[in-house]
């Protein structure tokens, strides 16, 4: 039994007809064609699907679209400012913090929130903060370097 949900996505109100079981990640990818948010697992481990719900990092595969009704969602497509890369995206680029790029949107979304909550983290705190985002390519070394650089903390 479908119903309409209205979610403000990247600043724009968007409406879609969804089943109650439609996962938020599928609403974003299939209904709204925002394919930057990725699916990497089915047990809420990998974090590739991370978006912001009312400004907080969540795994969009573990949310029903109906649970986000009336709320604000920001995806990777929504974080650039005036077409410029967000400082975290720039840091990832400058530090080679991505290889295949599949985990990258989720990683960036989490990393930004990590720094918002803890603006000058130690490397251990960065690593701990990213425990919900799995990467198989980079070995995390350059991701940690990128987040450290984005925090402005010099080592």
């Amino acid at each position: 039994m479908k119903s309409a949900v209205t979610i403000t996505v990247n600043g724009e109100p968007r409406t879609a007809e969804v089943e109650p079981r439609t996962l938020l990640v599928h609403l974003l990818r299939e209904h709204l064609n925002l394919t930057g948010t990725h699916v990497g697992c089915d047990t809420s481990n990998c974090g590739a699907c991370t978006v912001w719900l009312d400004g907080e990092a969540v795994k969009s595969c573990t949310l029903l679209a109906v649970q986000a009704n009336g709320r604000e969602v920001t995806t990777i497509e929504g974080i650039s400012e005036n077409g410029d890369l967000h400082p975290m995206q720039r840091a990832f680029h400058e530090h080679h913090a991505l290889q295949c790029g599949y985990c990258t949107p989720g990683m960036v979304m989490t990393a930004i929130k990590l720094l918002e909550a803890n603006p000058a983290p130690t490397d251990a705190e960065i690593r701990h903060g990213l425990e919900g985002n799995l990467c198989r390519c980079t070995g995390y070394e350059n991701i940690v370097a990128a987040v450290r650089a984005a925090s402005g903390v010099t080592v």
Partner: protein
Amino acid sequence: MIPRAFAYERPASVADAVGLLRRHGDGARVIAGGHSLLPMMKLRLAAPETLIDIGGISSLRGISDMGSHIVIGALTRHVDVAESDLVRSACPVLAQAAASIGDLQVRNRGTIGGSLAQADPHGDLPTVLLALDGEVSAEGPDGMRTIAATDLFLGLLTTSLRPDEILTGVRVPKAPKGAYVKFNRRSQDWAIVGVAAVVDGSSARIALTGVGPAPVRADAAERAFSGGNAAEAAELAAEGLDPPADSAGSADYRRHLARVLTRRALEEASSG
């Protein structure tokens, strides 16, 4: 990855939620943060016909200072418990346990009520509630009642909540000297064994998770503790345990972890 179809209700009040539970009976499940239930539904290990989403009932959110106790609404998220100044100072074992759950994203959604109602055999918050001798409030068609932690966790994923009751809140005593020690292989994992210890002068309350179908109190270790003898008391932490064996650990290893982690939890709690 894809749950079976279900009907969805979003009640505006606890009374409405209870009414829906009554109406739909066995086929209904309550959902809050969804981080216990949705993963099971996506693997099709659970397939409720109706989901009752209590996430919009804002009265169920919040942390209040009640003098000797802290009251926490069932929908209060792990991140909020972990970062609450009140909880961190007055009941640090609870903040510590909440901070250890899953990862940042999971803590932004998971709720204390959901965690307690789920009663996962590796769960962190049920263990802490037990060690604190806390209680939960529940509302059903006959009204409200409180359930002591010792009466709440009956067995594997089973609580004494009735099918038409909603867990509405948690009440824990302030306990400045407490610690939660969680042992796992990877940072985001469930506990293999976890120990919550609350020290009050020369007595301790100790609860363990991962050692059976439900969290348990380490009665023998508690009786042996006389303040300052953490190592001696911890030797008895595995008394009466019949831990499971699986790929994360054998029964013997779990007993051993119970002893080691109990000592560490008592030491940390005592120094707090």
